[in-house]
């Protein structure tokens, strides 16, 4: 069986057709959002991101 991998999925086609602009948009959007969050952004994806406290609440 041969699968045509040139274009991949519809999403990949849209992504790859405009890849550089899309990658820039995602990076800039992440930067803008983090700046909007201020100090709270520092806890994103760290051990202090709320997972432990949320897990404790669920366990209680």
């Amino acid at each position, binding site marked *: 069986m041969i699968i045509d991998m040139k274009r991949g*999925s519809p999403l990949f086609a*849209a992504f790859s057709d405009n890849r550089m602009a899309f990658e820039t*948009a995602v*990076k800039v959007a*992440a930067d*803008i959002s983090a700046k909007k969050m201020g100090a709270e952004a520092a806890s*994103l994806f760290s051990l*202090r991101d709320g997972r432990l406290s949320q897990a404790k609440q669920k366990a209680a």
Partner: protein
Amino acid sequence: MIEEGASIGPLNGRLNVPIYYGVHDKGVLKALVQMVQSQRGRDIWIKMTDLYMCPEIELEVDTEASTADRLSVFTTALLGVFALTKQVDGADTIKVYGRTEALVTFLRGMHDALAVFSSLGNMPGINVSIEGRWLVFRTGK
């Protein structure tokens, strides 16, 4: 053994099981991305359900630099998921789950910025929305 489980390898054809990919930088593993694929009719949704940072990054003291490191890993992971959709015929949706309240706030902020970029024509063919705790990217149909 994880090597014999259903959680590694190509995406295509594996539905409703957690699948893990590594985020590497110069050969060093920085994080593991957890994804789940599901099917809606002929369309495949790829859900980025979690991101496990390596201990060196996760345990860093929270500073501007460590925040930038973590965000860089996150955006690399997200763009990597887009690249992986090349393997999946019919993939038309990527959803990113906000596991914590801070992450939901962050994803909503990303959505607001991406919506502006989209309105300016910088993301042709990809629509972005918020659905509950999910940041959703869909092909424009």
